[in-house]
């Protein structure tokens, strides 16, 4: 049977991620105006944010599909992509050019969500395999 908590979490994650993306983009714009943000540092940050958005869409789609069709392949792929998303979130938490307190908060929430999702995905894969 599909995992209902996982599905709920995917849905909440989707909404939260939209908020996260807009907030991070707005804060990057704010930082570029208020602080000295040369182009060599601005470009990687923006690029990684957009890559993260693409990965997130893919991840949520595959995870949701795998959960609903009770197949472990898309769910496994989604788990692998989650690793990438986690690394990117850590980047925005620690290695970004300027890390504001707001950045710390939203990235922490995102990482917590990823963690919870990963656990539930693993359990779901285990349930579908057996």
């Amino acid at each position: 049977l599909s995992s209902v908590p996982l599905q709920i979490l995917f849905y909440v994650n989707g909404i939260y991620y939209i908020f996260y993306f807009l907030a991070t983009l707005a804060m990057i714009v704010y930082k570029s105006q208020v602080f000295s943000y040369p182009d060599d540092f601005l470009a990687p940050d923006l690029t990684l944010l957009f890559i993260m958005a693409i990965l997130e869409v893919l991840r949520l789609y595959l995870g949701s599909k795998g959960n609903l069709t009770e197949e472990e392949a898309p769910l496994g792929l989604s788990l692998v992509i989650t690793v990438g998303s986690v690394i990117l979130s850590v980047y925005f938490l620690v290695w970004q050019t300027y890390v504001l307190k707001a950045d710390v908060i939203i990235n922490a929430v995102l990482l917590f969500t990823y963690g919870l999702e990963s656990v539930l995905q693993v359990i779901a894969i285990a349930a579908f395999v057996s």
Partner: protein
Amino acid sequence: MAVALRLGALLLFLLPPVRAAEPSAEPAPEPMASAAGPAAPPETRAATRARPRSGPAPVTDVAKLCVCDLLVAQCDVNCCCDPDCSAADFSLFTTCSVPVVTGDSRFCSQKAAIYSLDVEANPPERIFKLIDQVNPSVFCIHTTNYKQALSFSSPEMPTSENFDQLLKQFGSASFSAEPDSWNMNTDAQNPSDTNETYRYKYGVPIQTVDAFLRLPSPVVSSWCSDANPAGFLLNQATKCIRSLSVEKCGNIEAVSMLFYINSSILAVPESNQVVNITVHSIVVQSLNGMRTLLNGSDVLRLPMILDELCINIVLGVSYHITYTDAGEIIEAAASFVLGAINKEARSIQQSFEISFTQVNTKPVPLSGNPGYVVGLPVRAGFRPQGSGIIQSTNKYSQLTILQSTSNQDCLAAQGARTPILFGYNMISGCKLRITAAMKCQPLTQTLLDLLKGQSFPEFVASFGNSQAQDVLDWVPITHLHISEQSSCQIPVSLEMEVKWTKYGSLVNPQARIVNVTATITTTTLKQLPSGRERTIPITSSVVFTDISSPAEPGYKAWPTINAKLPFDFFFPFV
């Protein structure tokens, strides 16, 4: 199942501990030995040795930073962070001029040093607290990975390796090698636009057939450089030194007349119309400085060696260019001063000037329009019986004052005068040595000539643009004599007072001369016993006084309410 659990545990390990990191960035490059805090890691010291020497490192420890500590090894007053102050000094302070020293307040958490004076205690003592200041905003900087973000960057010190790269990055026209536009020989520069007519504009170098019209001028040192072009409508006068000797006088082309009139000027830039430079006049200067104007000026006189002298070398050129208002040059004339040098001379001084006149105009030099402009010469002239005002054409010699020379002897002053410029108070003087043999009357006359000059005018223009035919616009000079009653009076000072007023609108007042008074003060010449001599100072001065009455702005009258009741308003009763 066990595999899944192990996988889950591995994933849990991957979640990084979320913890507020200490603000790792000190907002500056690595502090050097002055920071007492954590010991500088050894690799930064090695790095600073390897780097070329840069500016002094900034102090970043807030406990050590003290901006009011200005006196070395002495206690600054009211400076609570000064390490040179003892407790006894602190008891004498009234306040702390620097109460808080913090780093960048945008960080979420940073150290702050707080200095305060406890005036309750007896004697007052200083309190020093090192606290962690927290920025409550949600947008405070938690960490920054861009080290130079929040401090001024020290500029790179140029060394022999990076000089070329720095020059390319920061050097601009003023600091680069010869610009390409000087090279007139490249035809591929701009394809000629035959549709668009070029014309000269202000400041554009005047082009000749081969390059530019040269006006040699001193560059950096006083030696002449032939690469200075003359700019259109830029009246310039330059003086420079050229090295020259009798043996080489035929070889150096810059001292020959031909060099200056050789190439013809292009009437319009990038065109084929040429204007030849004509020789207007030639003045020959002899070795002792005497100048004679030559009659025929069409003969080209080239330098040649005659009797161990080199004659006909160019000492000065004065170009006069006539132009039209369409930006075309129609005439060019050059006046030369030729001189001679002898065997001992190693260098000569050349002077060059260029002036522009518009065709069909007679340039009348005005000193203001209409009010006088500060710094322009005061216009003055004479008025013979029954005619208008006559002025000298040289605007700088209409009203003049004695010019002090380096040898202060009045009688050797050789009549040097300097023009009186509007608004500039001047004082000058010389010393007169009186011997017993001097007679009163000739001395008086000489001194009067000296103080007043050769042609002391009678009328001064009240406006900067007063016309010579409007006699009423000219103010007569009032003469005053202050003398004691005695036999022989010699004039010793001439004081001119020019009273002027502001005229016209409040917003743009114009200066207008109202009154000019020339006061001559005389003193008694006492007869000296023979053999003795006396020195008396002679002064002349000019003072400009503003006698404008304070402006009274005029206001319109208050509006009145013109309310009249109709005639039959109170009808039944009136």
